[in-house]
């Protein structure tokens, strides 16, 4: 029979209605899947009780593939068809990938594969999305067997620095693997959730993530239950494997070994890793082995020696940490807690160095290999609706840069400010600028600057079919909506006629982390300058509006002006047009004041005229209504 889990009070699922949700840590080196069982987050092991799934896929000519340890075992024998570390290729074009020549893979040229890279394998051409999907599918099957049912969804973690293209590629991979994505969340955020920091005091937290081959540091700010990524940094070529390498070199030197065969090197590297892991819990690690060459290695590695030979590696991780803090404008004393993530953080010298740097003991009582997956599982459990009553907090991410649209004069009107929590929807009303305007161009931009030319253009679309009206009469509601994964859709709707147009912003327009950082820096540096330019632009737009209004008034009610007055008004218009071209706001304001003064009398007369017209109209209408009541009835009915 089905095995049951304990639910929160009142939350027992109906039979066959269990909301099975998992968290997936789709890692560069290893991946994991976790779930919440009876209120407790646990990692789901494979049949052999192993929690990790190596993120490696081996493709065969007959179309079959192997994922995980089996694939890893093929790596040495068939490197070209065994894809590892595919995460580095997600959402990346060929030109984005450095050290391509040192990789054993066969890439399609950019002419064959514009956009994301593609790899030629015995099993056919594979995109990183497909390779990731094969890993995710294996995890999905593991979860479905372990939970006894179909998943309602998963939360998948991505590095904080992943841009839109990389996030979209991850979502696509999940879709391909048949996994409904509840949400993508940042890895450091997931780690913080696993430690329950989302319920902790507000403040700044650092997440130190030293994995097998990559190092990431993230500085998060927790405020009102929302984690905001303040800065990220790291080294994409530094990880636990480098520590193995150091021990390997030490063995070679200490045992005075000659150059080794490939097999012997592999064997020694394995011994090196074992020694490293042994030293986490012991003071001395034996290193004994008999090589294929017949030589016998019999050494002892002490914690002290290991500390010495790996000192530079540990120090190397602290450089990005310092930089990340500097980028966030913080010092170590601002950091409230440090979360350790990644198997390599088990090494005592790493723990020690991090503790010393931050002047506090790092959080390390959860398994650093599992902490990201556990946090993702907790989030998935909430999103799937398995939360306790009253426990309705929902962790949110924020948008890194403001979103807005272009208004007259190339100005940006921000609709959703940066650091707004997502999902978010905001609407604002706009109107037409000219009489009889029937179309409106909507230009969606992202950035912090005041002028469109300084922001990133995301999308453009047109709203057509606006009924001709006087300028300012149309009511166009523009709605910005960002879904939980940060994807934006924008819609415009003219309220009186109901005409609509919309656009969904394609992720290929995504900004990289560096670009975001650069744009933020720019906006701070240009605040004053921008304010001035904005004011000037606004005045120019205002001047044009005044000119248009006066000209259309002359056209319709020109007879109200004497010839002399008309000449003076026209002269004032020309003066204002000239002033609008200059960069002087003072001249512009003076010229506008002049024109307004010249037309004051004219405006008053027009007002009188229109009031008379309105009154006359009303009395006629009243007469008609009195004389023919049935007609009024009909028109009233239509109005409703």
């Amino acid at each position, binding site marked *: *029979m*089905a*095995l*049951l*889990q*304990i*639910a*929160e*009070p*009142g*939350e*027992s699922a*109906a*039979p*066959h209605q269990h909301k099975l949700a998992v968290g997936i840590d789709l890692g560069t080196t290893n991946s994991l899947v976790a779930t919440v*069982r*009876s*209120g*407790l987050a646990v990692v*789901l*092991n*494979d*049949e052999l009780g192993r929690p990790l799934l190596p993120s490696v896929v081996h493709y065969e000519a007959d179309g079959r593939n192997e994922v995980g340890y089996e694939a890893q075992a093929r790596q040495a024998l068939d490197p070209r068809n065994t894809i590892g570390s595919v995460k580095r290729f997600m959402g990346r074009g060929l030109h984005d990938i450095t050290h391509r020549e040192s990789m054993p893979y066969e890439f399609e040229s950019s002419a064959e594969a514009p956009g994301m890279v593609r790899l030629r394998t015995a099993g056919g051409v594979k995109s990183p999305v497909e390779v990731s999907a094969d890993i995710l599918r294996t995890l999905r099957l*593991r979860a479905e*067997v*372990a*939970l*006894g049912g179909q998943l309602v969804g998963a939360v998948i973690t991505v590095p904080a620095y992943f841009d839109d293209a990389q996030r979209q590629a991850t979502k696509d991979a999940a879709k391909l693997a048949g996994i409904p994505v509840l949400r993508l969340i940042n890895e450091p955020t997931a780690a913080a959730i696993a430690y329950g920091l989302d319920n902790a005091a507000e403040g700044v937290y650092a997440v130190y993530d030293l994995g097998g081959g990559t190092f990431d540091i993230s500085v998060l700010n927790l405020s009102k239950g929302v984690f905001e990524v303040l800065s990220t940094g790291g080294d994409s070529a530094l990880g636990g494997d480098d520590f193995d390498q150091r021990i390997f070199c030490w063995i070679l030197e200490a045992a005075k070994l000659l150059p080794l065969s490939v097999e012997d090197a592999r064997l020694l590297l394995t011994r090196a890793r074992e020694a490293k892991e042994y030293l986490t819990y012991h003071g001395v690690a034996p290193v004994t082995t008999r090589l294929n060459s017949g030589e016998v290695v019999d050494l002892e590695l002490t914690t002290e020696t290991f500390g010495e030979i790996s000192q530079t590696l540990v120090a190397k991780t602290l450089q990005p940490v310092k930089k990340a803090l500097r980028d966030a404008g913080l010092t170590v004393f601002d950091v409230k807690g440090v979360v350790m993530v990644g198997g390599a953080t088990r090494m005592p010298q790493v723990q020690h160095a991090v503790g010393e740097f931050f002047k506090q003991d790092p959080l390390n009582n959860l398994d650093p290999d599992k902490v990201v997956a556990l946090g993702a599982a907790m989030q998935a459990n909430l999103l799937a609706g398995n939360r306790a009553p009253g426990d309705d907090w929902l962790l949110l991410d924020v948008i890194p840069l403001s979103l807005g649209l272009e208004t007259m004069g190339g100005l940006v009107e921000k609709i959703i400010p940066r650091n707004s929590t997502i999902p978010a929807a905001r609407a604002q009303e706009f109107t037409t600028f000219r009489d009889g305007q029937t179309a409106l161009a909507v230009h969606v931009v992202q950035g912090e600057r005041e002028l469109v030319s300084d922001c990133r253009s995301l999308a453009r679309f047109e709203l057509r079919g606006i009924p001709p009206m006087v300028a300012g009469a149309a009511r166009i509601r523009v709605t910005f909506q960002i879904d939980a994964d940060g994807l934006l859709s924008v819609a415009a709707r003219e309220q009186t006629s109901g005409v609509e147009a919309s656009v969904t912003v394609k992720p290929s327009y995504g900004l990289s982390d560096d670009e975001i950082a650069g744009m933020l820096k720019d906006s701070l540096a240009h605040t004053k300058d921008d304010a001035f330019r904005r004011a000037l632009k606004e005045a120019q737009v205002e001047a044009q509006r005044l000119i248009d209004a006066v000209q259309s008034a002359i056209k319709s009610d020109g007879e109200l002006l004497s010839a002399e007055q008309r000449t003076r008004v026209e002269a004032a218009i020309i003066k204002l047009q000239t002033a609008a071209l200059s960069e002087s706001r003072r001249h512009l304001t003076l010229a506008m004041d002049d024109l307004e003064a010249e037309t004051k009398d004219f405006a008053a007369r027009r007002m009188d005229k229109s009031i008379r017209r309105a009154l006359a109209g009303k009395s006629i209408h009243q007469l008609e209504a009195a004389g023919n009541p049935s007609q009024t009835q009909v028109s009233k009915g239509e109005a409703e």
Partner: protein
Amino acid sequence: MAVTLSERAAKHVANYLKKRGKGVGLRLGVRTSGCSGMAYKLEFADSVLSDDIEFESHGVKVLVDPKSFPYLDGTELDYTREGLNEGFKFNNPNVKDACGCGESFNV
């Protein structure tokens, strides 16, 4: 008669309660639904209700509402592992037949 927990089940429940940080015990119940008429309820209990029937099993408080009790009397809740899956299992002597998966049953 009574409703009991196996020793293994009690150990898991105690652990879950400790990690959860609140709750007085475990609530078992039945309700009408599912493909064979009735379904089990298995929940954390945050408080004891006035008409609850209380049991104590291996140090864990077990609560059953009086309406459910006739259907559960004599039940032992066990914790088992089946392949990759693990969880709680109702060994209920009152059950005449159950649906294929055992999630809902008839008495």
